[in-house]
């Protein structure tokens, strides 16, 4: 991954034996936030703790570059292991880890040394909208305010790297959306490296330019966030990025395949289907509803990809219909909050555009 801003770049290679699996992860993080997406207990937090120096890996290296300069935080070959105090790595804990015995002001000032202390604390109070709360204790604050104090405390310390450990998991949904936007702004203004760990797909997509998908201590896929969501390559990665429909396939031609788990549905892809391809995925939003007349026009074409809608089961969400077809396919379609009858939105046919087929390797679960 090129670091186009020419600023900080973090290179981590971490190996550590955990209780039930081995953590083996290497990645680089440069411009823009790097997201590590994975289920709980996959070793995400341990990765961050290793970078911050809170835990020591069994082996590997953690190096921070800035242009020509190079700072080794940890290297098992040379035995170097910087104290967390010397790493200049900020860590936003899941529950913020504010010092309950200190006021907001004192919390923010905790990491600041020297004559600048007062001035910098004041700046941070201003920047994070905490003016008026200086003398409060953390337990007297709302979840959102607590997170702002924790971020202000980290920013006042001026770290080269900030690590965000599931920053929104302890929050209500409505607050979460608002604070995500706040964080997005803060990360944009921040000049160092940022790494965010989450199990929330939307969060990772919204905040991170690059992403590592992680499971059981290993990276399953890594790359540009949008590309990764468009082409997740493996079944597991597809599942992680929220692909609802995955089926094993049998190749029937250069562009054609038969989906074994969807009642032998014949599909046409706009790309040649390579030898390694073992499965196909379709995102639930990618179906096109067609009337009988429209469907008739596609019927004779090889890239028709038509599916008749028979005995669908429909479930209503505030802004979407969840439709499950007879063969197990999921279709999600937008609806107005005022609409409550699915009758008129259920078309006789659905079509899958050939470009919407995701060709995958590996076994679907």
């Amino acid at each position: 991954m090129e670091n186009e801003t020419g600023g900080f770049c973090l290179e981590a290679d971490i190996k550590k034996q955990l209780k039930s699996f081995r953590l083996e992860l290497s990645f680089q993080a440069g411009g823009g936030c790097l997201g590590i997406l994975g289920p709980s207990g996959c070793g995400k937090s341990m990765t961050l703790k290793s970078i911050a120096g809170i835990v020591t890996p069994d082996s590997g290296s953690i190096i921070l570059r800035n242009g020509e300069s190079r700072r080794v935080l940890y290297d098992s070959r040379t035995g170097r292991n910087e104290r967390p105090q010397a790493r200049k790595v900020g860590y936003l804990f899941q529950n913020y880890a504010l010092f309950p015995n200190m006021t907001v002001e004192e919390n923010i000032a905790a990491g600041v040394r020297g004559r600048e202390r007062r001035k910098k604390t004041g700046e941070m109070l201003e920047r994070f909208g905490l003016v008026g709360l200086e003398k409060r204790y953390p337990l007297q604050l709302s979840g959102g305010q607590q997170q702002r104090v924790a971020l202000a405390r980290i920013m006042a310390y001026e770290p080269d790297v900030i690590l965000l450990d599931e920053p929104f998991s302890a929050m209500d949904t409505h607050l979460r959306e608002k604070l995500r936007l706040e964080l997005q702004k803060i990360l944009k203004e921040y000049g160092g490296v940022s790494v965010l760990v989450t199990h929330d797909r939307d969060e990772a997509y919204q905040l991170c330019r690059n992403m590592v998908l992680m499971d059981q201590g290993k990276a399953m896929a890594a790359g540009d966030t949008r590309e990764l969501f468009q082409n997740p390559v493996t079944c597991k990665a597809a599942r992680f990025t929220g692909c609802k429909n995955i089926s094993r396939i049998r190749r029937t031609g250069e562009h054609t395949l038969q989906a074994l788990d969807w009642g032998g549905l014949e599909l046409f892809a706009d790309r040649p289907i390579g030898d390694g391809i073992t499965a196909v995925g379709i995102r639930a939003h990618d179906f096109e509803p067609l009337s009988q007349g429209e469907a008739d026009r596609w019927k004779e074409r090889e890239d028709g990809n038509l599916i008749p809608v028979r005995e669908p089961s429909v479930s209503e969400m505030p802004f979407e219909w969840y439709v499950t077809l007879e063969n197990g396919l999921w279709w999600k379609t937008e609806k107005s909050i005022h609409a409550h009858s699915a009758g008129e939105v259920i078309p006789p046919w659905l079509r899958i555009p050939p470009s919407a087929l995701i060709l995958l390797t590996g076994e679907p679960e």
Partner: protein
Amino acid sequence: MDWSPILISMKTASLSIFVTFFLGIFSAWAVIRLEHPAWKAFWDGLLTLPLVLPPTVAGFFLLYLFGVKGPVGKFFLDFFSVKIAFSWPATVLAAVTMSFPLMYRSARGAFEQVNPDLVAAARTLGMGEWEIFRNVILANAVPGVVSGGVLAFARGLGEFGATSMIAGNIAGKTRTLPMAVYSEVAAGNMEAAWMYVAVIVFIAFASVMVMNGAAWKAEGGKRRGK
């Protein structure tokens, strides 16, 4: 009525809690910082020993170490011409030894209750280990440390077994309140014994009230009022 046991006990208990308080906190910090679990268990066992030994056995060891012929006692006698055994300092020595484990264990428990994320956060913010101990660990363990202090104070005030071994029961010199109760009962002076008992009960009850008050105050300030 002889007031000297009350005076001696107050002096002994005050000085011994002063010593025990800081010694206990420091030992607790030193032990939680040990990384090897075997060393941790060893030191913890050694420091807790006076709590689980019969007080006379603890007193026996003190007498062995601090008696005029014991290694430490002889040293003090030869170099400072100070006789420790059967003098007032011996009551302090006995009280410190016997109350120390309570202080140490309460402090250790309170320190271990402090969320480890707070310590990790403090480290990533560049705070030094001593600063972390003072401003994060100790500051967030106040109720536990205070209650340990009060328990240790009460234990020192009530010390009998080890005191009788190393300090004896010399009226006006090493006769503390518990010793005085014993002596008066042995001499058949129940009325005098009642007086001393009443004083002990009063002090003990007051200590517990102080403990509850301090714990309440430490908690309250940071929660009340939005």
